[in-house]
């Protein structure tokens, strides 16, 4: 490897400064990304007197203490959100994984239109997705409630699952399957013992993505909810009156849980990597 001999050499100080710009910039961006989170977390400890939570009035832990007592409607909305998220994740992940398997491992006609069908929901603005569902439900007289929310969430999640799973399945080494079958395993056993465990991380990632998208969905839910309230809808309604600190606490909690989850995931990955080599080694 030849050392680079560029005709113009920058002065060391300037170069070091130049090198530092990008990381510093990254630091600022990360700070900017986290600012609202910080604000949200801090104001979960605000000791408010009246209804409004935007001037600091003192520190208190009471909102953490009576997190689930104060607003029964808030609890119900969380329950609704979780219910919808769990069901839509399970269904969408199943449907999407099947489609992903079909797309990457089988030959069939209609590939083009299918790809379009999968891609379009991702490319359509949420408001159009939600509004069109509303229009259809109204047209056929289907009252909107938690069922219609779940239907909508399954719909948009399928596409995301397919895209996520496909990447993982495509990178999967078919030679392993062939090897298994050469050794006498039938298709189902091969799938169960070889294929599925190896593509499982991709499926899991897709499921997590679907879950996150469903829990936080606002626009599509607002159109298909009728009077059912999910957590984002409750926060939105409350924001017009005065967001109670319990919302901040819950947001902080969700964030922390996700943080812990990610931490565990990283730890697991490290362990998986340092354990016996998988198909990633060629």
């Amino acid at each position: 490897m030849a050392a680079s001999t560029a005709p113009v050499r920058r002065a060391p100080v300037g170069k070091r400064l130049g090198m530092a710009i990008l990381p510093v910039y990254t630091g600022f961006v990360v700070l900017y990304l986290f600012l609202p989170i910080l604000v949200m977390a801090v104001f979960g400890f605000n000791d408010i007197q009246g209804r409004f939570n935007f001037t600091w009035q003192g520190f208190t832990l009471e909102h953490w203490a009576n997190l689930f007592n104060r607003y029964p409607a808030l609890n119900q909305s969380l329950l609704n959100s979780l219910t919808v998220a769990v069901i839509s994740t399970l269904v969408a992940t199943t449907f999407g994984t099947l489609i992903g398997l079909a797309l990457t491992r089988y030959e069939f006609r209609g590939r083009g239109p299918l790809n379009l069908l999968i891609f379009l929901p991702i490319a359509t603005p949420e408001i159009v997705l939600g509004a069109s569902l509303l229009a259809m439900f109204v047209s056929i007289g289907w009252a909107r409630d938690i069922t219609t929310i779940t239907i909508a969430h399954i719909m948009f999640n399928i596409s995301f699952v397919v895209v996520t799973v496909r990447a993982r399945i495509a990178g999967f080494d078919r030679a392993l399957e062939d090897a298994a079958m050469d050794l006498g395993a039938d298709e189902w056993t091969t799938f169960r013992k070889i294929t599925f465990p190896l593509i499982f991380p991709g499926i899991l990632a897709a499921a997590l993505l679907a879950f996150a998208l469903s829990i936080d969905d606002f626009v599509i839910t607002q159109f298909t909810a009728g009077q059912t309230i999910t957590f984002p809808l409750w926060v939105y309604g409350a924001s017009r009156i005065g967001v109670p600190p319990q919302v901040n606490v819950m947001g902080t909690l969700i964030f922390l849980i996700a943080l812990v989850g990610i931490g565990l995931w990283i730890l697991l990955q490290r362990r998986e990597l340092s354990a016996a080599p998988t198909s990633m080694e060629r």
Partner: protein
Amino acid sequence: MTTHRTRTTFAILGLCLALILASCGIEPEDSPGSTSSVDPGDSGATDSAAPSQAAVGGGEPEDVLNFANWPLYIDEDDDGNRPTIDQFEEATGVDVTYTESIEDNNSFFGTIQPALAAGDDTGYDIIVMTDWMIGNMARLGYLEPLNVERDVPNFLENADAVYLDRSYDPGNIYSVPWQSGITGIGYNPELVDEEITSLAQLFDPELIEKYCGQIGMFIEMRDAMSLAMLYNGVTPSEATMEDAEAAQQTLLDQAPCVRDYYGNEYAQGLADGSLAITMAWSGDVFQLQLDNPDLQFVVPDEGGILWTDNMAIPKGAAHPNAALAMMDYVYDPEVAAQITEWVNYITPVPGAQEIILQHVADAEAEDDAETADYLRAVAESPLVFPTADMLDRLFSYKVLDEEEERAWNELFDEVVAG
């Protein structure tokens, strides 16, 4: 992808499209009001005085009651319980499901309309709608008629006479009032160094120049248009199409200085100092005054709006007797007082004021100065118990038919969407 396959695909899709387009339509099934024609000259009253069906009720309350209301519209304690609901449950044995699912009259109506059109149970036994929506729903046949004399005697006994015959529901065939409120002007004397007494100080572009960017208006079409009409010297309930267009022009002239068109969030604007002068509701300002006593609410000289939110029973409700029992229950002056002490809007039961003053005396006897002061503020506030002078200057919304509503919406949409 071969062109042959593309063409086939599109051909099939096109065929499906044509078939579905041809058969699609949003048809309401046969409901009493779906074919009703609109009387162009009928601006104040509902279609017919006497309902074609017999009133609901007259039986024992069922086991369950589904009550839909606006947020913060019934008393609540610090643990999230609702004393009035709990007491009602204890007194009658009815299990109440109280949901604050009404954020907007039209939005809510949009969600229950499919059931009403199909003649199904909406899932609610009591809904609380603003007066004009009651008028609309009654005209469409979507409300159950009531026999107030038989089933809600407390109303006849305790309600103020003015509620016994409102223009949107003469004879109280379909509804009884829940709470009323005043739409007027709220302002922050720290930012406004003069006294606000006239709508001109809210609408006149020259006068609002110095507060440009700190003016608040409602996104509620009827509130905003009616106030503009009052500024133009028009009585809202008698407004013509020309008056509406003039009102729109007033609003458009005002718009450059308006910070935003709010639902309930204007209260936060007043509280945090981003709004100097704004349209406001009496109950909200009263509550803001608890934190900041300097904030003012005024019924302008030209007039303000007195609106009433009413309890009604949607058609096909499963538990009408329980609903009527609840309606009767809240007209007991003690209960009315309890609700008003928390909600701070205008109760239809004038007797509540005396009871609140009694509570003041009780609190003082127990050396609870904080509660006593608060309750006294409630009992003596003209925002909760308006004076006759104020009531003289208060007007009602116009009850619009469909044509008018669409036209007014169009006019107002232009104002709200820049």
